[in-house]
Structures are given as structure tokens and as C-alpha cells.
């Protein structure tokens, strides 16, 4: 039997067929190849889609590019006495809030002066 002709094979076997080891090996190898091929095809499609979107976004950005005020460089600390906004602490004390903000900054890799916390609320244990 030509194992690469899946359609032909599909007409040959039934669930009750007793396969020989060599036939089973051929089925297995074909199966591995089919799964690999199909998922590789999907991977190629994703790569192509990502390229198209990247290109489209690039063109879009160039079109809407306007002279804007240069953003402050990352990591620039706020001037002394300036506030990054109001932070509501609900059932949380200040030292705990400071620790939470430090952890978020550390885990996300974003400096504290670029993060804006709105509120920190203690959740009830369920």
C-alpha cells in the first residue's frame, strides 16, 4: 500500500482491521508528518499575518505623524514636590501600599515614576 496516499488508505482500513507492525509504523510516521505539516502551515500563516499587520501599522504611523512635544525620557523622576496623581487607599496602610507599588514596579520592569496608581483596595477573604 502506498502510505503517502492518505485518501486511498482511508478507504482500505476499518476500525476492526488488524494491522501489521510495518503498516502501523507507516501510519504513525504519516500521522506525525500530517500533524507537523498542518501546524507548520498555521505557523506560517501567523507569521505572514504578523508581517502584514506590522507593515500596515508602520504606514499608519507615518501618515499620522505630527510634530508633538518630545516625551520625557523614560526613568526621568518627577520634579520634587510634584505629584503623580491622587491614590486612594482603602483598608490599606501606607507602608503596605508602598510595598505593593514597589513589587508591581519590580515585576513589570516599569519604573515607579512611570506608573500611575489610582487606588489600592484590600479584598475580603472568600
Amino acid at each position, binding site marked *: 500500500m502506498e502510505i503517502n496516499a492518505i485518501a486511498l488508505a*482511508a478507504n482500505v482500513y476499518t*476500525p*476492526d482491521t488488524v494491522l501489521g507492525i510495518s503498516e502501523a509504523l507507516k501510519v504513525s510516521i504519516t500521522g506525525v508528518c500530517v500533524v507537523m505539516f498542518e501546524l507548520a502551515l498555521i505557523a506560517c500563516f501567523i507569521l505572514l499575518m504578523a508581517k502584514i499587520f506590522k507593515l500596515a501599522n508602520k504606514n499608519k504611523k507615518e501618515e499620522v505623524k505630527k510634530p508633538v512635544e518630545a516625551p520625557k525620557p523614560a526613568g526621568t523622576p518627577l520634579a520634587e514636590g510634584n505629584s503623580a496623581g491622587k491614590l486612594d487607599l482603602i483598608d490599606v496602610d501606607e507602608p503596605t501600599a508602598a510595598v505593593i507599588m514597589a513589587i508591581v514596579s519590580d515585576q513589570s520592569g516599569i519604573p515607579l515614576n512611570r506608573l500611575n496608581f489610582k487606588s489600592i483596595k484590600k479584598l475580603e477573604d472568600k
Partner: protein
Amino acid sequence: MSIVDVFAGLWSSSGLSQLFTADGWKNLIMIIVALVFLFLAIHPKFRFEPLLLVPIAFGILLANMPSTGLMADPAGLMDEAQMVEGAHWYNDGVLRLIYAGVKSSIFPCLIFLGIGAMTDFGPLLANPISLLLGAAAQLGIYVAFMIAISIGKITGGAVSFTAGEAAAIGIIGGADGPTAILTASKLAPQLLAPIALAAYSYMALIPLIQPPIMKLLTTKKEREVEMKQLREVSKVEKIIFPVVVFIIVALLIPDAASLVGFLMLGNLFKECGVTERLSETAQNSLTNIVTIMLGTTVGATANGQDFIQVKTILIVILGLVAFSFSTAGGVILGKLLYLITGGKINPLIGSAGVSAVPMAARVSQVEGRKYNPKNFLLMHAMGPNVAGVIGSAVAAGFMLLMFNH
């Protein structure tokens, strides 16, 4: 008629007396198994997949109570060869009627709809190489298939599996309950109960099965690799993906269309942004309802008279082999990609290519952090994990294409 005769008649027609007749002990063993499963599912110390194990265990209990007729099919509706002329569907046992949802593939497909609605394909879209890991982690399916076929030759035919049975057993290696159930219901309905139980049991045991294999196949240096942050995926990409994947899969392997179709429909509900109510229903109410019916009726197929046999033990062993080789397949390809990319890919994410979502990805994360506390592999492992869902559905579709005639 004396009162003694009445009591004797009552005794002989009771389920209790039938437990102690010729093959009644088999039901008794299954009742004990059901009680053990219930214990493992409910006790706070274990809690093994309780959402599945409780209905499955209770289904086993229901089916093994003698003379209840819950899974009876006097009308022969489940088997065309045994169909009784003029019989009515309502003469069948209530569980047998619900079981039609398994037999007809309705339940596995609806579960896939729910899984699709719960799945975020973002990590996969951000790192498409994950798909190859998901494909490699289907290796166990084919290894178990080969071994199952070989058993007949080794034992001289004393115990043997047909092609359909071997294929259904192999699919346990996909680590995907609904896919294993669908394949078994089509190719080997007589082995559905042991296959489903093995698949779900091993999925629950993934945190125990995978780590030793991962450790055995990787070096400390490989396990410590930190992977760079994934790119942001746009909403449009997430909407296009399910539609195109379904078209590709259905055109190439039509037999996988039902599973992949429902998976992608559920995902489209989630991502398109205009069907929130449908997505919500698919994720919660629908999945819960179907899980109750699927779990109970799958458990109910484990009738002691058919379940207790040598083949069941072999299926349990082959299931473990399939799981182990699938894990190894993913890790080995992960190692290969580690070499090709110059150490940018941590091979531990390969093991998540088995499709048990999200347990397998969680194992990669936990193992990765053991060797490098700064390592966050979870999102990287989710890519192969969801790719494994597609991969196992494609592998099942291939097996159905080969043997379902």
C-alpha cells in the same frame, strides 16, 4: 404463597442478591472504585479534578447498581444490528438516552466550544514556533498506537487491539479528554470508559508525571533560560486567527472539522467583541451542563461486566506511556529549538505541548522557577499548550480519516 416465598422472591429480585451471583463481584469492585474516586475528588487533601471526577465516579456508581436498567438499551437504539422493530426510544434507560450525546459527538464538540471561549490564543500568535512544540507533543499518540498494535504480535493474539482500538488508545497521549472520548466513541465504543478514565486521570496527574521527564531530558543550563517578553497581539489578529485556522484544518483533514470548528467558534465568540453573551454562556453554563452529562454517562459506561478485563489494565499502562512520550516529544523539540535559536527558547515549555490546558503550562512555570526564580514561563508555555489542543484534534482527525469507515 407463604410469606417466606414472598421474601425469597424479594431477595432474589433485589440488587443485593445479584451482587453475589456469578459475575456480580465485578459490579461490586466497580462500586468500590466509584467510592474511591469520590473520595479522591472530594477530600480536601486530594481534590483530583473534582468537576470531572465527581460526575464520572457517580456515573460508575449508577451503572453498577444491579437491575436498575439506567444504561439499558432494550430497544437496541444504540446498535443498528440489534434494533427491535417497533421499539420506542423512551424504553431505554435514562443514562443510555443521555449517552446519545457522547455517541453522536455532541458533548465533546460542545465542550470544545467552551474551551475555545475560554482560550486566549494570544501567546500562540505572539510566538508561532509554539505550534511546532504543540505538534511534537503528540508523539505519544503514535508511540502508544504502535505499542498497542505490537501487543497482539507479542502475545500471539491472546490479547490484541484492532486498528481502531489502538488509535483510540493512542489519543490518550493528546492529553485531551473530549478528543479522546470522541475518537473512542467512533473507533472503539467498547473501550470508551477505560480510555476516558485513563485520559482524565492522567490529566489530573500531570504535575506528577511530567517533572521527572522534563528533568531527565534537559540540562540545568537549559532549564534556567529566561525568555524575552512576547509581542503584543492586535485584536484583529485574534479575530482572523480562529476563522483561518478552521478553514485550513477543515480543508486538509475534514474529520477534524467538528472538534476544531467548535473550538474556533467558541474562540470567535470570545474575541469578536460582539457576542459577549454567547461567550459567557459557552464558558460557563453550557460547559457546566455538558460536563455533568458527559461525565456521568462516560462513568456509566464503566459497567463491571465489561470494564474488568486485561485490556483495561493495558489501556491504563499504554495511557501512561502515551503521556510520557508526548511530554518527551515536546521537550526534545524544545531542546532542538534551544540549539537552533542560540539558547533563546527554554525547552521546559515544550512539555506544555500536551493539550491539558492550563495544567501543563503551569507545570512548565513551576519547574522553570525551581531553577531560576526570576523565570516567568507561564505565558510562553501557554503557546504550546493551546497549540496542543489544535494538534491533538488534528491527530484525532487523522486517525478518524484512516480508520472510521
